[in-house]
């Protein structure tokens, strides 16, 4: 159900400081740029600088397959995050969404071993976490009730 996207793009040495700066100012967690790309379980950029010429690694676990995800990323990433791609060698600055998507896709690799055990959509997981929270709050608020009263309270909260 989920897809792993792995992409490597070259970055010239001179652009590294500016790229580091661009990555460094991006907010993290739920304010992070990928919150606006639907279907992202997680996504991250990593600068690889010790293995030879610098590379920008992008890896993500997504609800949709690579191409539609990359396209949605091109369309939805906020400008302060689009800047990251603009640091890569050969990024087609003036090109259309389709061309940019194709550029990204051409740099994708099929990873042999990725650790991603989620087999549910982002929506399923968010709903699951919410149900867990509600259940936890319910259990805390109703602790100590007799079984019949507990069952009644449970039905009132979660339905029959």
């Amino acid at each position, binding site marked *: 159900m989920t897809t792993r996207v792995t992409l490597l793009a070259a970055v010239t040495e001179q652009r590294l400081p500016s790229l580091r700066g661009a990555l460094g100012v991006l907010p*993290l967690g739920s304010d992070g740029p990928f919150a606006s790309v639907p279907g992202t379980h997680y996504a991250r950029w990593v600068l690889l600088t010790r293995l030879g010429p610098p590379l920008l690694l992008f890896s993500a676990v997504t609800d949709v397959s690579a191409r539609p995800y990359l396209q949605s990323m091109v369309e939805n990433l906020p400008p302060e995050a689009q800047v990251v791609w603009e640091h890569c060698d050969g990024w087609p600055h003036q090109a259309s969404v389709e061309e940019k998507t194709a550029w990204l896709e051409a740099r994708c690799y099929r990873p042999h071993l990725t650790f991603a055990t989620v087999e549910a959509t982002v929506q399923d997981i968010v709903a699951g*976490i919410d149900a*867990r*929270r509600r259940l*936890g*709050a319910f*259990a*805390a*608020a109703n*602790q*100590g009730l007799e079984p019949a009263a507990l069952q009644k309270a449970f039905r009132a909260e979660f339905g029959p």
Partner: protein
Amino acid sequence: MTLWRRRAAIPALHHVQGNVLRPFGYTRGAHLFMHVPDARAGRAWLHQVVGTVTDAVDWPGAKPVAARNVSLTYAGLEALGVDPRVRAALPEAFRAGMAGRAAVLGDDGPCAPERWDAGLGTGAAHVLVSLFADDAPTVEREVDDVRSSASRWGLDVVVDQRTAQLLGAREHFGFSDGFSQPTISGVPSMPGADGVPDRFGRLRPLPLGEFVHGYPDIDSDDPPALPPPFHRNGTFQVWRKLAQDVDAFNAYTARHGDVLGLPAATVAAKMIGRWQDGTPLSLFPSSPGGEEVARDADRTNTFCYGDDPRGERCPLGAHVRRANPRDGLPFGGVMTARHRMIRRGMPYTDGDDRGLVFVAFVADIERQFEFVQQHWCNDGDAFGLGDEPDPIVGRNARLTSQHGKTTLGGAPPRFLSPLAEFVTTRGGEYLLLPSIDALWALADGRSLWRCRSGR
């Protein structure tokens, strides 16, 4: 897993600062953070002070009347003129400083760096001199001595924090504290020091490199080194001032005890994972183990959680179980081994303001201290507890959110909810506690790449 096969390294005790591998054991302390006006003055001052720093060599007879540590913040290394290439090669968390890592540590709201005590987290604190003695006049004398050498070279004291043990080595909530420490191979162990459980539940010592730079650690016989002169015999020091709201804690445990039909002392013990006398809930789930056991450090600290997977004896979310889950996570102790720390905190009492000066020594701030605070104390996912925080030191915003609760275990499980803010961060710094020869190198201005090579 090669955890147990590492070569046992012998620490060079005359180079390592004291109090790291074995506690000084004094009952009073003073922590003077100072601002260095310029590199020359700072080095001249350091030159005068290095000779007074206590090393880790055994004291042959009675212990000295006082002992000292000197450590430096990243801003302090900058102020002393340390080569930018050396500084750039130091780990990111240390370079950012504790205030710079507020988002990682969950220091927001009332714990946010903007609200910290003056002098902490602003870049003004450059060097820390920590002084220890057993009586107040000696501490005063030592403080005067440090202050006068500081003023001679134009260093300003920006924070002067005193600490003192409470009766019976308790912290302010009334719990015996500070005795559970990692056993380190090559270092004679303190009574009660615990190791890391192997897959048979036996406690094994941790390699020295987990706490002191330049020695084999769990991962490698030759772990990545810090740049010279910091490559060997130093450690990182986490210094964190945590205010404790004792009245709120006592009122809370009494009120929730009433709701749950439990004595307040039991509620408090379930939050900590030990009884006030220090005996662990894992061994004594329903009442304290008693004075005789409490005095026997080996008995109070030789236990695991693997046989209590649902937290029926010790709640999964209790402070000590989170801070050191022992074999309570999958794969025995393997998951916890790299997240241990040596703790050397002491309570402070400034009138009504009371709390703990939490001090930890670790080889890697991010992997050890920050990991524990961020993943194990501010969140409960690792323990199957969703986002439940540590009821004592969890991120306050989570504690007080409408979902803030602690699961006390049992069948049916009982909960503490909502939680309250009992502990507030008042400030802190990440420091490098260099080896004694690295302190000399700094004092001489030899903190260059070429000053020493490798080992």
